[in-house]
Every structure is written in C-alpha cells, then in structure tokens.
C-alpha cells in the first residue's frame, strides 16, 4: 500500500497508508487529517480538499483535469502551480512516498 505524507500548516507531518485505487482525499479523511474538509465527498464540486503537491513530486502526480482546473481558481487559499484537489489524485504504488502540503484554509 502506498504511504503518503500530509504536511500541515504548522509543519507537522501526518503519514498515512492508503489503499491503491482510492484517492488522496479519502486517505486524508479516513485518517482524520486536519485541514482536508472535502465537503462534496470527492465530486470536484466544492474545492475544499485543496493541497499543494511538494515540488519534488509534481511530475509524478501530473496536472489537474479540466473540471479540477476550474475549481482550483476558487480555492480559499491561493492557487499555486502545484495546486491540486486531493479528490482527483488517484493513488497507486507509483505514488508511494508522496508529500503534499495542506493549505491554511479550505473554505
């Protein structure tokens, strides 16, 4: 199972294991990672599971899809080139060790 790391705004890290075939948002929510709100439950409707992919991992994760790209314009925290919605990042063993940064606010 891939291990993914959420770095919180205060610098602390939460390391969680995730089942392949699920998405990064689910890994956060099912492990109670603070700051991933995910109001719409993974349907790319709310923009409240925003993360910044660590600079070293952006190539592995890839770019946002079209709907996600639109929603990322309306996140509560600033959009950056590394912004993604965690509900749109599918997890696989290739993403083992992924680090993402949780923004200060989601709504």
């Amino acid at each position, binding site marked *: 199972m891939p291990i993914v790391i959420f770095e919180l705004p205060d610098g602390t890290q939460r390391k969680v294991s995730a089942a392949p075939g699920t998405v990064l948002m689910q890994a956060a929510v099912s492990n109670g990672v603070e700051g991933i*709100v995910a*109001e719409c*439950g993974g349907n790319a409707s709310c*923009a*409240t599971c925003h993360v910044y992919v660590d600079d070293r991992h952006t190539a592995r994760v890839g770019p946002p899809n079209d709907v996600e790209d*639109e*929603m990322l314009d*309306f996140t509560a925290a600033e959009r950056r080139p590394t912004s993604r919605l965690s509900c749109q990042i599918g997890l696989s063993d290739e993403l083992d060790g992924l680090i993402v940064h949780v923004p200060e606010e989601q*709504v």
Partner: protein
Amino acid sequence: MSVPTTAAPGAPVVDLDLADLRHDPYPAYAELRRTAPLAWVPSVGRHLLTRYDDIVHAEKLPEVFSSREEGSLLLRTVGPNLLREDDPEHRRLRAAAEPPTRPRQVRDQWAGAFERTAHELLDRIAGRGEADLIADFAEPLAAANLALVLGLRNAGADDVAAWSRAMMDGNSNYADDPDLWLRAESATRAIEEAVAEAAAIVRREPDGSVISSMVHAAEPVSLAEIQNNVKVIIGGGVNEPRDVFGVGAWALLRRPDVLDRVLGDPGSWKRVFEETARWVSPIGMYPRQLTRDHEIAGVTLPAGSRVALVIASGNRDESVFERPDEFDVDRPHRPHLAFGGGPHFCMGAWVARHEVSALAWPLVFGRLKGLRPADSPQDRLEGWVFRGLTSLNVTWHTA
C-alpha cells in the same frame, strides 16, 4: 423493506410541537444535542440527528443513509429527482445539470447579468427611502438570476418566485394541508409547460443554461427528468440565496460596528456569507432513509428507518462552534454544514456565493446610504425545514 413508522428500539421519543419549531427550533435542538442526539419525534415522523459529528458521519455514508426516501414530501411535490436519488443515478443527473453552476461559469457567463438585475431592482426603490428588502429586492433578484441560469427565458421573476414558494410549502407540508398541495400541483404543472417549451428551443440552439446542458448531456436525460429537476432547483434556488441575503443583512443592520468593519474591508463579505449560512441555515434539515441496520449516536437503527439530518442544529453544536448562537463574522473558521455534504453538496453554492456576497450585499449597502432597520414587527425569522426572514423593512436617506 417495510418502513418503520415508530421509534427504533432504544431511541428516545421526544415530542416537539411543529409550531414551536417554526417559531424558533434552536432551543429544542440544543436540548436534543445534550440529552437525545438521536430522537424519534412523532410530529415529524422521523428520527432527528442533531450533533455535528453524527451528521457529518451520515453524510459520508450515502450507501447507508440513502437519499431514496419512501413517502418523501419532495417526491410527492415534484416527482422523481436527483435530490432523492443515490449514485449512480444521482451522478448522471447531477453531471448533466451542473456545468452552468460551476464557479468559472458563474463568473464568466452569469455575473454581468446578475449585476445588471441587481442595479435595476435598486433603481426601482432607490428614490423611495423605504422598502422590504426581501420582497422588493432579494426574492426578485434570486428568481430572475435563477430563471437565467436555468434557461427559462419564457418565465418572469414573479412566476419563478411564486412557483418556488408554492413548491417549498408543499415540500415542508408536514401538517398535510390540502390547500398547500393544490398550490404546489398548480406550480409544478406550470413549470412542466415552461420547461418543455425551453427545451425545444435549446435543442436547436444551445445557450449554456442548465436546461440546455441537460438536453445535450453526454448521458441522455429525458424531458420528464429535466422537468422534475428544474422543479427541485426552482424550489431551492430562490429561497436559499434570498434567505441568506436577508438574514445576513438583518444581522449586520443590528450590529453597526461590524457593518462598518465589513464595509471597510470588502474581502470580508465572503466571511459574512459563510457565518450567516452557519448561524441560520436556509435549509434546516433533510431526510435520509437507512439501507441497512446501522448504529449511530448510541442507537441501532433498523434498515428502513427514517432520519432527518438537522444541519441547522449541527451548525449550532457547541462542541464545534464556541458561543454557537452568536453571529460572529470573526469566529475561527470551522466548516459549516449549510450546503450539505457528500455527493449532494449544494449545486447552487457557487451561484449563491457570488450573487449574495459579491453582488447583492455590497450593492445594497453601497447604494442605499444610511440604511437602517425599520424595526417592523412583521420582520420575523420563521421556519425550521427552511428558515429565513418573512420580510426585512428598512429605511435610508434619499437626499
């Protein structure tokens, strides 16, 4: 599967008077959160679930807390629709209807017309020095904007507002008043005709509206499905932005110091919106029905049990929000439940946020100088399934 119409074994039974709930449900909700967070309420015919964490838990388990509810008032009012479906059926309808309500579409396609409509409504009242901001501004604004986004160019704002009121009265007709059913049926027939006409036009000439999007959806949607879902959207699409506008304006008018700070920091309208929606959620509760036995709040509910997720109560849960009964735009941010959660997260959220916090409040407070509440006894907060101001009478300087 039979539908239990009594309390689940072990569930406390709490008598609540519907008239008391309409007047002010919050004291009853506070007591339920404290003593019976899952309670069978005979007058409602459901188990009320009132704590924040339990509601969030239920919203995250749509496969257990199903939106398909037998005997639903909404089903009786409008027929089968996406709010009373689960995925994948819900997803098919939502995907067809949603694109015109996404935030970039709101900004690029609708915002200009929204702003013009707001100015036109203010032009009509600006010289009067007094108005009811609900009837003279918020309701016609919400209805006109909704007609635009839906693609109902053959209906006026007055029609849409009246249809919405009639259907909402049906949808919250727990007292089973036959006159309310008749009015709701008359409204839904009128909507069916208007949608059929609009759908025929956009089939030839797509216009980016919700009806057009559903007509041209990748996964086909029938005319009856479009009609029923437009009914649902008209139901919610008027009262929710209208009520958030009214309650937020009412709260600020009674707190001139807060209003001054907000006027000096236009970026804070967004916080006002979210706090208003938390403080008095326009939708107070919605129903779910269990697909299988499930334990929640210390009670094992049998399959088929009817539950009401009381988001108005979750939004006042003292374990999540300090001093929850206070309207406080500076409170530390915690996500509220007013837009619902999971797959049914409010489709109109981005429309409402823009319409109310980016346009309606700034324009009203910017143009009507010296705005003051008229302290009319008619201005009451009312309702529990849906809650908002009955009117908001105000005065301002015209010189």
